[in-house]
């Protein structure tokens, strides 16, 4: 039922998103959209010694995609970049407390994770182009 989905926490993050905006001269800037609904998320990262020093997101979309992005920035802020690699679909869904979303809405919830993973891949591949093959499937989240 949607009362379970649209709990206070989600609505709060939706209305008062954390870490929303842009970083000037980010180390990573990446964006993607959900072809099914048009939701957009862009993420900027500042990385120092492979640690996420700053993270900001921007975007347009539904409460789930925006709240999930907001919570995700809190999850990874000040964590090693490699944390992103290990983050799974289930981590996100549990973190935002939405473990029984339907398949269409799951993509809303996971869009920001997908963007973040894309950013990480890009970061590593830019640094070391020979890792492209190995990193290829790292941005898959669903």
């Amino acid at each position, binding site marked *: 039922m949607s009362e379970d*989905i*649209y709990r206070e926490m989600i609505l709060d993050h939706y209305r008062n998103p954390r870490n929303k905006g842009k970083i000037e001269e980010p180390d990573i800037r990446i964006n993607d959209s959900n072809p099914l*609904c*048009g*939701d*957009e998320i862009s993420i900027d990262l500042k990385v120092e010694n492979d640690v996420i020093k700053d993270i900001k997101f921007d975007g347009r*979309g539904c*409460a789930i995609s925006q709240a999930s992005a907001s919570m995700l920035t809190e999850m990874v802020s000040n964590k090693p970049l490699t944390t992103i690699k290990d983050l799974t679909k289930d981590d996100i869904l549990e973190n935002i407390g939405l473990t029984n979303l339907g398949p269409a809405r799951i993509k809303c919830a996971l869009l920001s994770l997908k963007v973040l993973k894309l950013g990480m891949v890009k970061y590593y591949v830019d640094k070391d182009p020979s890792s492209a093959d190995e990193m290829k499937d790292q941005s898959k989240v669903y």
Partner: protein
Amino acid sequence: MQALLDVYKIRQDFPILSRKLFDGKNLVYLDNAATTQKPKEVIDAISRYYSEYNANIHRAVYQIAEEATEEYEKTREKIRKFINARHSEEIIFTRNTTESINLVAYAWGGSNVKKGNKIILTEYEHHSNLVPWQVLGRTKGAKLNYLQVDNEGYISLEELDKIISITGEGKTKLITLSEMSNVLGTIFPVKELIKLAHDKKIPVLLDGAQSVPHMPTDVQDTDCDFLAFSAHKMLGPTGVGVLYVKKEILEKMNPFISGGDMIKEVHKENTIFNEIPYKFEGGTPNIADVIGFGAAIDYLNEIGMKNVREHEVKMTEYLMSKLTEIKSIKIYGPKRSEDRGGLVSFNIEGIHPHDCATILNDFGVAIRSGHHCAQVLMEKLDIVASSRASLYIYNTKEEIDILIDALNHARRIFKT
């Protein structure tokens, strides 16, 4: 033909309408612009085909193959009549509207559109009537010109006239537009536009995906050159589309999908193609569903397309009046109900359409949220998405009331 349609009687013909959803709720299906539900007459026609006379058509001489061929070709004739085409050879079966339009882009566009040419379309086109032309334009070095759409979805013939003139004589190769916008609901009076185009010898393609299912169609009256539509949006099965092309044009058109059935003679170095319409139906067709579509046409004829339209106008007026009462709602498209088909797009401030649709689902209400495959229009309207409720012959006022209740519930959850 009955005077007005009996919606409660009609509902009994649709098995899905008595289905109970996960928590025992009834389905309130308001996503008819995406696809419509099917009456048992259509479902049964498909089952009957498979259970009694399933066979590959056109070539075999045994009994069930002849039965299948006959039923398949009967549907072609039914469609000819339904859209009042002159000849049944002008009716080509495809998978959907999208393939119909691609067929024109590849087969007709491929040899008629050249470098420096223009194709005119509107800003409200569905991606299916936009991307194929973009792709063709890119391949050929031709340009697209978009007719501006105002907030109610109207386009201006003066602007069209101006674009054609500026472009220069003979440069505009095609005007293509949706007879009814799938987002704004605007019904465009195409007859005048087609006359203007024909005066300048420009052919016109109508995307009829939203119009043909909901109102009487007469290709001889509008005089369009191409008309595309989908069975699944008018009680028919998925997997069948129609492309109508005027005979004079069709006879000169290159084939699109080539292979079995569309040939007359094949030699190592060359092939002589079959007669129209078969030239355009390569491979084993979707026989069962074409026959199922025939049953859908019968069903619609039984009701009468004028009655379909009348019912929708009445229902749309009710829907519009109820929606207007909701606080901070924005409704898109024409105000005058005669100018709109049976669909309404809207946004409630502070509630994203996806969230809205998810909450509505709790009430059993199925509406569409998103860009509706019309991102160029979305950009123009400066929104990412909208909610859309779209009606058909089986929808009732009671269902609209449930929609309104659900929307108010969404407002309570989002505290708007």
